[in-house]
């Protein structure tokens, strides 16, 4: 197979069009002479960024908010255009999409990152590492999941309502579904899942395997995915899923008590607080049925165009140090990935919305138990097909086996098109 040097092609065609006028080409990095850091609103605490800009003023640290929706498009454009590339950039949990182009980023291990490794959650550290061992992203936050539930409604139904008791009662997925059926006896119509997809995603995230194995071969048609899929289908069949189509319906269900339980990452608590202020004091969180899992969480990467990667790394490792991770949590609600921050007394404060429970402890326990998973650059593309097909089962009444087979057929096509072995 021929590999064509794209830049040469681009330069050639551009020159042919008479565009390569000498002397007016754009600079390679976003702000020459300074160290630009791309972030998005709420992605890093502004208080920490302000301090960092002052602390690393000599190195020229300049945090720039480019917006979450815009970051990927801009990063692709600037990297392929070879101009205005940020020196540092945030990457969300889609970081694996960039693993194929790891050469565009600095291997942080070459800058001495290894000495920090022990300070962070091991699975999170690995999630920013490419299959061949390059550290592409330095950990920012995590999204450990837990079961959110309404203690008052559970108690009313005569069911366990204290976090430890509930956790024991819903230890496995089957326990959880039985618990939901029990709840429905006194509260008809109550649901314990947002939709099939929620259960499918978290059940899958609780295991170490995803869609591609470490060697890049497809394993999405194997038992671990099928088990998660079956759980997603079952929750709908049992009438325990709300099948909510958007956040409006879901939030309304929190308010009205129609959804007295759901599994979600730590950051969903902000939405619950905003959406259902009248339910304050009644919510609790406990260990998720089936075990710990994670959804979401970001990284900072340094591009290879950065002229001073060592200074950039010093800034990044300071911004994301365990002490500052606590501030990111307190000021912006970003759940820490640094071990010390998880036990920081400043972070471990009781939350009155959750009846004075120290929810951080529950999420921290989940965070420590998240399995190490091999993420791949194909995950998002593959996941889409499962999501659509399981939605077809739940909302359009499609036969689950048919839907599973259709998903696999479409994924095989996608893999063939992308040149992935299976």
């Amino acid at each position, binding site marked *: 197979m021929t590999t064509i040097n794209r830049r040469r092609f*681009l330069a050639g065609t*551009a020159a042919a069009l008479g*565009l*390569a*006028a000498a002397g*007016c*080409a*754009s600079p390679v990095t*976003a702000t020459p002479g300074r160290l630009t850091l791309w972030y*998005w*609103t*709420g*992605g890093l605490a502004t208080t920490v960024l302000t301090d960092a800009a002052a602390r690393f003023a000599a190195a020229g640290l300049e945090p*720039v*908010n*480019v*917006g*979450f*929706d*815009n970051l990927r*498009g*801009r990063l*692709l*454009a*600037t990297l*392929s*255009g*070879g*101009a*205005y590339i940020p020196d540092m950039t945030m990457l*969300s949990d889609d970081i694996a999409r960039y693993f194929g182009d790891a050469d565009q980023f600095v291997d942080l291990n070459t800058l001495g990152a290894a000495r920090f490794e022990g300070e962070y959650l091991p699975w999170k550290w690995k999630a920013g590492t490419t299959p061949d061992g390059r550290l592409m992203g330095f950990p920012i936050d995590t999204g450990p999941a837990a079961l959110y539930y309404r203690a008052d409604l559970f108690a009313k139904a005569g069911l366990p309502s204290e976090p430890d008791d509930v956790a024991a009662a819903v230890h496995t997925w089957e326990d959880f579904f039985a618990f939901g059926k029990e709840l429905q006896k006194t509260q008809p119509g109550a649901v314990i899942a947002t939709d099939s997809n929620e259960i499918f995603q978290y059940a899958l995230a609780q295991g170490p395997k995803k869609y591609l194995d470490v060697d890049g071969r497809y394993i999405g048609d194997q038992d671990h995915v099928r088990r998660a899929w079956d759980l997603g289908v079952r929750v709908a069949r049992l009438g325990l899923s709300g099948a909510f189509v958007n956040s*409006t319906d879901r*939030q*309304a269900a929190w*308010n*009205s008590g129609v959804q007295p339980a759901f599994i979600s990452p730590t*950051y*969903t608590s*902000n*939405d619950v607080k*905003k*959406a*259902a*202020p009248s339910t304050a004091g009644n919510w609790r969180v406990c260990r998720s049925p089936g075990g710990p899992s994670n959804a*979401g969480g*970001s990284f900072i990467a340094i591009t290879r165009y950065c002229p001073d990667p060592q200074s950039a790394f010093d800034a990044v490792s300071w911004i994301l140090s365990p002490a500052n991770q606590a501030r990111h949590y307190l000021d912006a*609600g970003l759940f820490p990935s640094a071990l010390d921050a998880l036990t920081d007394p400043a972070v471990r404060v009781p939350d009155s919305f959750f009846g004075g429970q120290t929810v951080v402890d529950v999420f921290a326990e989940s965070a420590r138990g998240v399995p190490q998973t091999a993420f791949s650059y194909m995950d998002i593309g593959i996941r889409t097909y499962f999501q659509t097909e399981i939605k077809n089962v739940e909302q359009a009444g499609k036969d689950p086996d048919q839907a599973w087979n259709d998903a696999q057929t479409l994924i095989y096509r996608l893999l063939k098109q992308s040149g992935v072995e299976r």
Partner: protein
Amino acid sequence: MSPSLRVKVFGGVLMALGAILTIFPFYWLVVMATNTTADIYKTPPKLTFGPELVANITTMLERIDFFGALLNTVIVAVVTTLLVLFFDSLAAFTFAKYQFPGRNVLFGILLATFVIPMQMAAIPQFLIMAKLGWVGDLKALIIPAAANAFGIFWMRQYLSGGALPDELLEAARMDGCGFLRTYWHVGLPALRPALAFLGIFTFIGVWNDYVWPLIILVDPRHTTLQVALSLLKGLYSSDYAVIMAGTLVAVVPLLVIFLLGARHFIKNVAAGAVKG
């Protein structure tokens, strides 16, 4: 009630109902902008105006450089609109009133450009801008948009439709007017209603454009309103009241411009086409 009166009343009621339906989402935008985000999230949601507009706007102003972005947007919208009006009307006048070799082929090419989906163009266009050194510069928005097929097509139709009788051109020629002067003194005045129409819609389009500006305006000092507003969104949750307040403030200038401009074109805009 006479039949015609009945039709009138019925029609009036329909018009009012339609207007209410049309305005409702906008009304809700205002409701969201005047309440807190928690109120928006509530079920049932609040349907009445709240007292939070000033607070939301203040928060919005703290988070983004609204006035800087407003100034840039005004510059881009005004300059682009003026260039479009000039280049498009000149081309339309020429296509409608002059015969020259290759005219029909050239016009066909122009029409063909309508069918090209430009979504694909974002990355190659960025590459061109990088070569030109225009990345992050307002030029990158203005120049590529300075002439467009829609405007030329629309105004050529208008002129071909009889808005500009050939006798007038003949008279101008007799007076010894050259090409440009004929355009300026005969073509442009005849095009005035069409210019008002095209001007308003070009202005609105540029004002609300965000796909291309989001990619090309990488420099936070040169940003437009839609780009600035897009920064308000977060990954895990967003402050919708603040976003809606920003959207509302950004739309007011457009409504004012429409109010001022509508009179000028509604009367005559399609006159040429219909009379033809």
